[in-house]
């Protein structure tokens, strides 16, 4: 049974529609990440699930129960806010047990529950402190503790890591992932950080302008993005997009001035309809590398000489910006590969994961 079902949910503020019919269903124990640029409606979606905002149309079901018009307290959810929203006047203990107290849990049970959660999150030594005396990471833990203590059906995380510094963010990300694996909780997590989305999610819902563009596993979204927006939004540095013409089911031509370059393609039956027509090629930076011996014999590989513009050493890899006709391509090469700026270097295009988009609709072919 679905833990959370969102059916054709719409939300308007006056004449502006911020949610344009969203359908999502997630299973018990699933980790769903809502992602999109700011203003895409992901926070509104989250608040609607929480019951903090009403929806204009559609239904929301939690554990099979229709809660579309229920109060937040009757939805059996807990939420971790971006600002943590800890009660400043209460101690950490008070913060964690407030929800239990409101729900009339006896004091003895409350104490047990608080201690259990505090131990889980390693905040036992902070229980008598006020939020103002805690660091950002500690506040984050307390906010999660407050959510965990109630053991609700669904946990909602609203950009919980965006106020932390980079190192702590990576730590807490791992912590959240571990917690999820250990407790098997159902989580809906809003973020605009695609690394968070990729690493945490069982499934990612990519939103734009109040529409759900794609709901799929991180790998599917990465490899088979439904359109150019999703392809460009997920992945850093972003996917390269190149105008091309589909020569045959397994061959592309790209015009570079008066030169024509041919690139091989993995066979795909959907390409039939686009034979001889313009398409947009999408290829990820890590698929354009230095020439690799073990790949030379593969069918979908082509080596080209391109002038280089810029290199960025990342440590593990070096990002290279290469001139390709009038386009600049992001390539990811091994740091040991010698590159002289401004000179032509050899790059190997691995087309096995290349995707094609319709230039008009921008949809995946």
């Amino acid at each position, binding site marked *: 049974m679905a833990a959370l079902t969102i059916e054709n949910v719409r939300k308007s503020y006056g004449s502006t529609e911020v949610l344009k019919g969203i359908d999502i269903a997630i299973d018990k124990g699933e980790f769903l990440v809502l992602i999109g640029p700011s203003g895409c409606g992901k926070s509104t979606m989250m608040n609607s699930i*929480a019951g*903090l905002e009403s929806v204009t149309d559609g239904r929301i079901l939690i554990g099979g129960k229709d809660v579309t018009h229920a109060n937040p307290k009757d939805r059996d959810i807990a*939420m971790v806010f971006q*600002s943590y929203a*800890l*009660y400043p006047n209460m101690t950490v203990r008070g913060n964690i047990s407030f929800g239990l107290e409101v729900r009339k849990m006896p004091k003895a049970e409350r104490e047990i529950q608080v201690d259990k959660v505090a131990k889980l999150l390693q905040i036992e030594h902070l229980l008598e402190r006020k939020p103002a005396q805690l660091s950002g990471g500690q506040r984050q833990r307390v906010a999660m503790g407050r959510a965990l203590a109630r053991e609700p059906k669904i946990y909602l995380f609203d950009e919980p890591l965006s106020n932390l510094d980079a190192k702590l963010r990576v730590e807490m990300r791992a912590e959240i992932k571990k917690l999820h694996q250990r407790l098997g909780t159902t989580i809906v997590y809003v973020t605009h950080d695609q690394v968070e989305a990729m690493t945490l999610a069982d499934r990612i819902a990519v939103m734009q302008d109040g529409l759900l563009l794609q709901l799929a596993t991180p790998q599917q979204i990465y490899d088979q993005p439904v359109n150019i927006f999703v392809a460009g939004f997920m992945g850093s540095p972003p996917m390269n997009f190149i105008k091309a013409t589909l020569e045959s089911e397994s061959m592309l031509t790209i015009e570079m001035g008066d030169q024509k370059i041919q690139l091989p393609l993995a066979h795909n039956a959907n390409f039939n309809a686009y034979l001889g027509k313009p398409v947009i090629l999408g290829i990820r930076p890590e698929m354009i590398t230095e020439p690799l011996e073990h790949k030379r014999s593969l069918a979908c590989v082509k080596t080209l000489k391109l002038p280089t513009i810029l290199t960025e050493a990342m440590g593990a890899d070096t990002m290279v910006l290469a001139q390709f006709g009038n386009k600049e391509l992001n390539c990811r090469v091994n740091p040991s590969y010698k590159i002289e700026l401004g000179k032509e270097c050899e790059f190997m295009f691995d087309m096995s994961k290349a995707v094609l988009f319709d230039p008009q609709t921008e949809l995946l072919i």
Partner: protein
Amino acid sequence: MTNFQHRSLLQHIARFALYAVLLIMALLYLLPLVVMVLNSLKDVEEIRTGSLLALPQDPSFAAWSKAWGSACTGSTCEGIAPFFSNSFKIVVPAVIISTLLGALNGYVLSMWRFKGSELFFGFLLFGCFIPFQVILIPMAMTLGWLGLASSASGLILVHVIYGMAFTTLFFRNYYIGLPRELISAAKIDGAGFFLIFWRIVLPLSPPIIVVTVIWQFTQIWNDFLFGVVFSGVDNLPVTVALNNLVNTSFGGKEYNVDMAAALLAAMPTILVYIFAGKYFVRGLSAGAVKGA
């Protein structure tokens, strides 16, 4: 070097002039109070023959004790002491009720906004700008209908209504600076309207409560017009009694008693400012710095 010294000398002069002006302004401002204190310690004869600014030759608190306990205010001669308790009986409930209502209003207008709540708030603010005189007659009629004419409760009601515009403004502007997510978190935790107010919002309010209480206390304690119109003979506040005391004379005018009575009547508000003034300033600027 000479240039530097020259400028330094100029700066000295400017600084000196600045302090001189400040000192003169402070003295001017304090002068009425000084005159009152000095003359309340003299006897009538000394005031009549000597200068108002002269120090008392033989300081005594006789005028103070007369003003407190035996001076005549109209037909009774019990000083202003009984009216002190009248004033407290009006001021204390009026301050508490108007502050509580203001807190509740501010909470609703900032955290539980409804359609038209901004308009509602705008209308409420009109209350801050309505002159007292305008509402005297309609208010008297209303109190009559309610059966509260010439009673302490009636006067309390008037002060609560009149004060609510200000208290609401104070609390609403303070609460608007609290994070909305706090309320959302409490709602999700299962708390309702009053529980959130009581457990989350009110414990965060002491700075603005202090401001509101001082403001309301001063306003209501110092009020004369509502007191004289609505209180009836049995509940006259101290301001009205002071007026009666000054206007009641048998034989010569007792300026020393008048001044002692005026100082006594002003004492509670002066004390409030002395002891809580810094919280007042702190509370007023509390919302000014984000994240403070």
